């Protein structure tokens, strides 16, 4: 196990280096300059500004400078989005709200989705099943900006139950955005659990358990549910990353100081250091979650072995 994790960690570093490299060069082909008022500067002035951020060096030198800083944990300084601010500080200050609504949305969505999926599977082809399937389809097909706008309009403006927008009222401010984010994991979880449960419930060992006289709830939770979880975890891992790292749409609609909308803005204004820093941050997050998911497999289903047969 330790050997396996060690090997995985090495792969992780390599992946990260590749992502950083790809992003770095992709970013440089983007049109536009981070020197925003470039048209206002004389060539001499522009050179001064570019030199300050090392943008005057040849591309390979810039690349190695950046990677060298990265190895030391230095993500650099924002060029124009928050002039002079440390990129790590920017990411940390924007991460909190995104993580909070993401976590709440993920939790709410997954728990409700699993419940919905299980009920649907146990009551297959009844109105309960149809209703749950309908909710799942709606959850997947309605774009989040529509759903978020509807929540804002009705629950915020018309009924006044929650703040319309802005990040000022603590938990209350996070309710509507969390619900908006919950829809997708809810629908996904419900769909996966239903399909898997139906498959598992039809398998031989369930028939055996029934023959042995196990109760309905024992069969559902102890035998069927655990097996149905595996494919769900596979999709939930990466989904958790995408939700926790912020949603441009939901953050923008609820005017939340999150990292999602800030990341997109950094690309618009070509703030190289912020683009790089945020991409790397997201990547680390994703890679770690994927490792955790792989480890979780073994915990949930002992048949899945992480390391080779000999160990």
């Amino acid at each position, binding site marked *: 196990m330790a050997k396996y994790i060690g090997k995985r960690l090495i792969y992780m570093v390599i992946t990260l280096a590749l992502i950083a490299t790809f992003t770095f060069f*992709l970013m440089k082909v983007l049109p536009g300059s981070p020197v*925003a008022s470039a048209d206002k500067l*004389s060539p001499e002035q522009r050179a001064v500004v570019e030199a300050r951020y090392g943008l005057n060096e040849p591309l390979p030198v810039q690349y190695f400078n950046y990677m060298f800083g990265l190895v030391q944990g230095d993500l650099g300084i924002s060029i124009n989005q928050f002039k002079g601010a440390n990129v790590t500080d920017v990411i940390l*200050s924007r991460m909190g709200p995104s993580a909070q609504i993401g976590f709440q949305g993920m939790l709410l969505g997954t728990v409700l989705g699993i419940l919905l999926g299980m009920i649907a599977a146990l009551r297959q082809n009844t109105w309960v099943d149809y209703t749950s399937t309908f909710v799942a389809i709606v959850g997947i097909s309605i774009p989040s900006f529509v759903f978020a706008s509807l929540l804002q309009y009705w629950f915020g403006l018309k009924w006044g139950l929650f703040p319309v927008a802005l*990040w000022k009222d603590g938990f209350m401010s996070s309710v509507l955005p969390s619900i908006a984010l919950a829809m997708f994991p809810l629908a996904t979880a419900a769909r996966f659990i239903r399909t898997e449960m139906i498959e598992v419930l039809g398998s031989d060992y369930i028939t055996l358990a029934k023959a042995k006289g196990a109760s309905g709830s024992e069969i559902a939770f102890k035998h069927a549910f655990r097996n149905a979880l595996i494919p769900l975890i596979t999709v939930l891992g990466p989904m958790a990353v995408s939700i926790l790292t912020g949603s441009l749409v939901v953050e923008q609609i609820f*005017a939340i100081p999150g990292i999602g909308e800030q990341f997109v803005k950094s690309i618009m204004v070509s703030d190289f250091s912020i683009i790089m820093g945020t991409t790397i941050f997201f990547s680390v997050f994703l890679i770690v979650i994927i490792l955790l998911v792989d480890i979780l497999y073994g915990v949930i289903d002992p048949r899945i072995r992480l390391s080779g047969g000999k160990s």
Partner: protein
Amino acid sequence: MKNSKIFWLLSLVLVLSAFLAACGGGNESDTSTETPDDTGSTEPAGELDSEQVLNIMESAEIPTMDISLAEDAVAFNIFNNVNEGLFRLNEENIAEPALADGEPEVSEDGLTYTFKLRDSNWSDGTPVTANDFVYSWQRSIDPATGSPYGAYMMAGSIVNATEIAAGDMEPTELGVTAVDDSTLEVKLERPVPYFMSLMSFPTFYPQNEAFISEKGDAYASNSENLIFNGPFTLTDWDGTGLTWKMQKNPEYWDAETVKLETINVDVVKEPATAVNLYNSGEKDRAGLSGEFAMQYANDENLVTELEPTVFYFKFNQERNGEENALKNVNIRKAIAKGFNKQDLVDVVLANGSLPANYLVPTDFAFDESNTDFRDVNGDLIEFNAEEAAELFATGMEELGVEEVTLEILGGDTETAKNMDAYLKEQLETNLEGLTINLKAVPFAVRLELDEAQDYDIQTAGWGPDYQDPMTFIDLFVTGSAQNKMSYSNPEYDALVESAKGELATDPAARWEAMAQAEKILLEDDAAIAPIYQRGLMSLQQPYVNNIIKHPFGGDYSYKWAYISGKE
């Protein structure tokens, strides 16, 4: 585990695709802010409410609050309210003395200005001195500071600014000196007729040397590390957040004029959210864009204001080094007259914009007797379908062709695409033999194509850098940065040259030269074709009064604003 390899690949693809998807989002070139204005009376009409709090929204974060480094509309708007320079644009948008104690003494040749400073304080109670101006200007022109506006505003005007910006001279040699604590002397390289209004621009505000050196790298990183000398102070800004406040500054020299106690500002980027916050009563004003402008067109609380930004077609006469149909003046004139501008602003834009038959915007620059430049020079090139059709036929005959195909390069925002589609339809209908291809690209790409002169017709816009017609008039002189379209007329160049040079001390003749230059550019040469002057619609609660919209520098002043009738 084979699966894990797929995950590695998946993870990479996910990250890259997220990145690429975000890249496709287009570039928002428009940095205009969404904040209040008012067209109401200047005297408090009703009784003042006991609670003087204004709740407004901005459409973007503050990138920096360092006066030398700022270059965006949000920061300039805040500077205009929390700091102050020698002059300030008043409620009629005329520059009037602020920190300057009355009008300056000007030497006969118009090259030396001597300002007396009034007694005023920084927000920490220390006095603002002439040296604060000297320090600030030197800091902004110092190439090591990397100020985007320093050289842009000073080079060619203030003595030695050009040389210092190029690194050939020391910043201390800039033509600005503190004669004593309350006397500032400025030496100019050439007379600058609009110098007073220029002094209201944030780049020329004073900066506090003691404070800045004490704070070091932390300076301007959040509202704790800032110092103010304007009507308000900035508070509760953490440096990267979406919220901040402005509080009345008790140290401000004219504090008794300031009615508002607190201004709560939140950044809201989604137009629909802004409208919802306005309707919920949480915000007192919301900018209306696109479909919202139409939806609220008849709302009783609608306010419309005109911005000094003009949009026009640029006609590129030599694409990639090859002359094209646009080299022919009749073709250019035909296109310039070939589309209905009134319908465009009424139906397609519907945001309070005006049809533009001119380059220098209306309600922007005024002569010594406060007459609008627009009233002097009038409409220069108007829609006329018949005339346009004739001109186009003549042009094609001269070129010896039966048909002309041209490309219109434009922005990729919804508004830009709708407008360009409308213009294509108009031109193809009114000008027989013309085929238009549309090309919509993000702002940064448009700039690159412009730089490479790789387009036929381009829809572009321009906003002022100083409050004088010249900021528009000189855009298209031979070889200028905006003239990546091979337009050249010596007569026009000469008029611009004389207005900038020998006529600088003769306001009336200078005004006349600029009017003449605009006529040549549009009437005679149709080098560009004006389309519209941008308007902005907002919803504003009726209890909000007297927010002043400016055409230059910071967009709004809250100094004179007040709340009346909310309670």
